[in-house]
């Protein structure tokens, strides 16, 4: 152990310039690998192709393929701001209309504990819900649903943009036809700290279409513009609904996936898929930012090669300059493998330090280790392992016989 400690200390002081060059090389390479991996993880996702003779879909469901350790719908997420911008662009795109319908259940006592039990979903065979769900059938509609699904109101109004802003203390609610005998238009219902304002009633036998094939009667349902107590979820629920919504392209020939790719790539957001629901999809697009990935990959390979060549060169020259010292070590009984191993230990130290800038960058940008440092360390270790081969060969050729003769002349 004393040999390693003494030799590494000697080498660090004596060869400090070459050590700094080695460190700079490795740091640059680590940053390139980090950027490549970051882009790759961002853009990597699978999606299915639906080619064939089926009719083209007029409805698509959005899905976000986010990283395992990150939920872009949480306000604390480094992807949150990007998610908001993606949502804005998706919802304002002229190529399609968007909407979402979310199934919900409202406890009966939240409206009126004396409501007849016919309003309990467990007693309504036409409403399909999980067995453990009990209460009034509820839905959350985005603002275009009523119009897009041609749902008629008998009384009152539909939702407006203010209803989605959570500015009022009262939750606006549109009720199904059968609630008319128990509530009146404009009525304010207070239950504890909850407060509702009845703004409309649907026509009798109104229906909505939450999924691809479901048809839901609204007569015994209430509809809200946003979930109750969304802050309980710890994430921005409205944002989540908005990014997992349905798209209705105005032209069936629209390459929906291509447009989604274009929007998400602007903000470095995760990959999103647009799955056609009721038909096949026109698709002529490749992996998002495939060109970018190819470019970054090429740069990474190039920087790795340059790093390898530079490291080999620096180490070889150092080993050549150190040959006299190595011969003295060999004369004193210190084996060659220890001399070589001390080079590896030194390089391992610089390699470990070189991962620090990408880690710092990752925390600065994302508040977390977006890319595992082990991937980068592994890649750099391969470069270092190949780089030391020439210096080992030189050290192995350290000829003590020649050393003694040459120095004596």
């Amino acid at each position, binding site marked *: 152990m004393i040999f390693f400690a*003494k030799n590494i200390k000697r080498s660090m002081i*004596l060869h400090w310039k070459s050590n700094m060059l080695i460190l700079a090389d490795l740091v640059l390479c680590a940053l390139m690998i980090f950027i490549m991996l970051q882009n790759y993880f961002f853009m990597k996702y699978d999606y299915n192709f639906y080619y064939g003779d089926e009719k083209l879909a007029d409805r698509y469901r959005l899905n976000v393929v986010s990283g395992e350790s990150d939920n872009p719908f949480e306000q604390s997420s480094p992807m949150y701001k990007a998610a908001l911008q993606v949502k804005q662009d998706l919802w304002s795109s002229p190529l399609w209309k968007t909407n979402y319908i979310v199934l919900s259940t409202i406890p009966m006592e939240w409206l009126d504990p004396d409501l007849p039990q016919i309003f309990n979903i467990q007693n309504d065979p036409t409403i399909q819900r999980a067995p453990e769900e009990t209460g009034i059938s509820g839905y959350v509609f985005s603002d275009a649903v009523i119009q897009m699904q041609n749902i008629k109101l008998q009384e009152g109004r539909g939702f407006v943009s203010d209803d989605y802003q959570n500015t009022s203390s009262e939750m606006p609610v549109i009720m199904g036809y059968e609630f008319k005998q128990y509530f009146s238009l404009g009525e304010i219902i207070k239950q504890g700290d909850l407060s509702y304002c009845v703004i409309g009633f649907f026509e009798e036998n109104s229906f909505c279409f939450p999924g691809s094939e479901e048809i839901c009667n609204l007569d015994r349902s209430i509809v809200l513009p946003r979930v109750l107590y969304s802050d309980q979820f710890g994430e921005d629920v409205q944002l989540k609904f908005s990014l997992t919504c349905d798209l209705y392209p105005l032209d069936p020939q629209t390459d929906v996936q291509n447009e989604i790719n274009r929007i998400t790539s602007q903000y470095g957001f995760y990959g999103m898929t647009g799955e056609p629901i009721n038909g096949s999809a026109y698709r002529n697009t490749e992996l998002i930012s495939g060109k970018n990935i190819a470019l970054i990959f090429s740069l990474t390979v190039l920087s790795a090669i340059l790093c390898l060549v530079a490291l080999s060169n620096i180490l070889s020259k150092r080993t050549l300059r150190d040959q006299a010292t190595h011969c*003295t070590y*060999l*004369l*004193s*009984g210190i084996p060659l493998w220890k001399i070589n191993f001390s080079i590896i230990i030194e390089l391992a130290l610089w390699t470990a330090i070189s991962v620090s800038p990408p880690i710092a960058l990752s925390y600065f940008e994302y508040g977390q280790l977006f890319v595992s440092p082990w991937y980068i360390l592994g890649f750099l270790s391969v470069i270092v392992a190949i780089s030391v081969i020439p210096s080992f060969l030189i050290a192995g050729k350290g000829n003590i016989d020649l*050393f003694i003769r040459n*120095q*004596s002349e």
Partner: protein
Amino acid sequence: MALLALSQITKSYGKQDKKLLVLDNLSISVSEGEMIAVMGKSGSGKTTLLNIIAGIDYRDGGEYWFDGKPVRIKQTSDGVRFRRNKIGIIVQHFALINDYTVFENVEIGLWETKMSRQDRRKRTSEVLEKLDILRLENQYPPELSGGEKQRTAIGRAIVAKPLLILADEPTGALDKQTEDSIMDVFKDLNNSGSTMIIITHDEDVANRCTRIIKLEKR
């Protein structure tokens, strides 16, 4: 009792028709406690003989016995293992490491032993004192005179108490006065029981040894 015995040793350099025979069936025996001078003209094979004895070079033929055991060196690592704690080597150009102090240069000889740090320091200090260079322990080789450098090199060679000390022209780079002081050191070591082989072309140095072996150029 013979510490080392070389029998019918041959060594050539070069390939096929350009081969140069340096050692031709050389046989030598060295007893414990001897101080032998090996003399000969340039090219007579003195350094080659020393390198074969030290396990630095490989003989082409013959047998080599050291401390009653046969010596077979096929590669560098064999030689390193053989030399460790058995043979101390002193060369003309001192072979010191300029980045280590005098103390560390001598202590190198103990780095491959199982001694504790405390014991290493104690032994190294003893050797430095014996060689009268304890006051220089924190100096670096470029700050030393030729004689001080050679004393440091001697210290490294003897610190692990080797069975044999080999010296290749140890006074070649020194002036006469320093040469005498170094030979006094060697004499003291020999009187303490160290076995020594000194390669030299200097008659004065050779005459201070107990036996002289002369090599003829082939």
